[in-house]
């Protein structure tokens, strides 16, 4: 496919964020949208993610965004005409410390006040929800039955194919080399396959969004960090919900096809773009999860891999136009929550660009919050 010369909007990044923004812009009537992907769709963080979707957060904005995202996920297979394999088995978040018990009570009160079906439950109730769970050390838990996960590949391809049906042009194996501005205004983008003139660029480059920012001459305060993950062979259904702990640092979920996927965040992981796999991770992960679900000792790991979290200083995304570069929009720094927030974030981004206002306020997610010192402190992240 030869490169188009002029576009109304160029999106950089063919992950879930870029493809869902492309779809929502096209759905709202925008024409002549181009999406550039360096490799193939879902080859970066989206295709490597744990694919969990939860509404159990500790700040009002995160709860509202996640709640609205789930609503979109619930109808997405139909809307996009592609089975995204949404599986709402709930998230069972285990409290192992008194501090967590207190925090979770506050979170649940907040979530319930916002119409999220989360509840604070006893150890016995947790055991009923996930019978193979070893409850040793567990003090209490929270459970939200409408949380769950979806197939990240299918969701990414579903958005991309729907966007293409609406006229979006997607270029794979096309790497952005340079972004040109004039009088602090976006004018064009150059790639290894040719240049495109455009007044608007959307940075949806995930783990490489900081590098794209530099091309536009701006410093985005994000960095990338490897997160490792592993998956087992498919086995009979053992438990329905995502099992998660913040203090013990793990998440673990059985997919509808039977494989069990699990990961944790290494606090000593250096910043950078390494996406290798380590033996130490597999060992530590196996130790953690066989202690929580002893049955897993008999289940075999078949594959491990890793992907990048694109982290912001407060682990919250940066969404909006850059104040110094007219036409340079960012949907970056999702800090491990890009997949679950994509349906709502992409819709809001399309509203922001085409209407200049959003149906849910996201002005607090602007890049200038760091300079103002108005960081959003979310107590519930892994």
């Amino acid at each position: 496919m030869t490169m188009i010369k002029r576009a109304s909007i160029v999106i950089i990044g063919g992950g879930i964020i870029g493809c869902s923004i492309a779809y929502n812009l096209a759905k709202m009537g925008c024409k002549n949208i181009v999406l550039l992907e360096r490799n193939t769709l879902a080859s970066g963080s989206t295709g490597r993610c744990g694919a969990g979707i939860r509404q159990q957060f500790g700040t009002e904005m995160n709860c509202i965004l996640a709640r609205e995202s789930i609503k979109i996920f619930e109808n997405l297979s139909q809307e996009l005409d592609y089975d995204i394999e949404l599986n709402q088995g709930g998230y069972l978040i285990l409290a192992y410390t008194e501090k967590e018990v207190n925090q979770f009570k506050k979170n649940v009160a907040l979530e319930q006040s916002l119409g999220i079906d989360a509840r604070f439950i006893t150890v016995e109730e947790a055991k009923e929800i996930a019978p193979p769970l070893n409850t040793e050390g567990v003090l209490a838990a929270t459970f939200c039955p409408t949380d769950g996960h979806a197939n990240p590949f299918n969701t990414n391809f579903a958005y991309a194919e729907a966007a293409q049906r609406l006229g979006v042009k997607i270029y794979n194996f096309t790497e952005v080399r340079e972004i040109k501005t004039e009088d602090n205004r976006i004018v064009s983008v150059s790639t290894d396959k040719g240049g495109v003139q455009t007044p608007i660029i959307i940075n949806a480059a995930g783990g490489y969004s900081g590098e794209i920012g530099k091309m536009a001459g701006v410093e985005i305060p994000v960095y990338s960090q490897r997160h490792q993950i592993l998956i087992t062979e498919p086995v009979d259904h053992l438990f329905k919900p995502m099992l998660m702990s913040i203090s013990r640092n793990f998440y673990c979920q059985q997919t509808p096809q039977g494989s069990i996927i699990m990961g944790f965040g290494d606090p000593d992981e250096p910043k950078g773009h390494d996406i290798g796999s380590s033996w130490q991770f597999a060992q530590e992960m196996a130790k953690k999860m066989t202690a929580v679900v002893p049955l897993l000792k008999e289940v075999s790991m078949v594959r491990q891999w890793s992907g990048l979290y694109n982290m912001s200083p407060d682990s919250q995304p940066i969404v909006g136009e850059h104040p110094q570069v007219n036409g340079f929009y960012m949907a970056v720094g999702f800090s491990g929550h890009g997949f679950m927030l994509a349906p709502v974030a992409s819709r809001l981004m399309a509203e922001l660009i085409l209407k200049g206002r959003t149906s849910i306020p996201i002005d607090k997610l602007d890049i200038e919050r760091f300079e103002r010192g108005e960081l959003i402190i979310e107590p519930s992240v892994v």
Partner: protein
Amino acid sequence: MKDETIICRCEDVTWGEIRQALEKGYTTLDEIKRVTRAGMGRCQGTTCRRIILREIAKFCHKSIEEVAMSTFRPPTKPVKLGTLAGDDND
């Protein structure tokens, strides 16, 4: 090859599913794997990878050497989590 022919025996992926993915424009091994799950099962593509490579080459009128290989991920063969965790005595 018939559409019903199973190409990936671990994940039960048929030639028909792979053919449809190719026709939609997914013409790399990584994309076919992500769209159909072929090669993601217990044997990690040991059986089906070569067949899919050959079919991609044929579909794209390329030689097999020109088709990019997918990433080989550890472990080489399945390992029990109990063994990894160090609970086995053997």
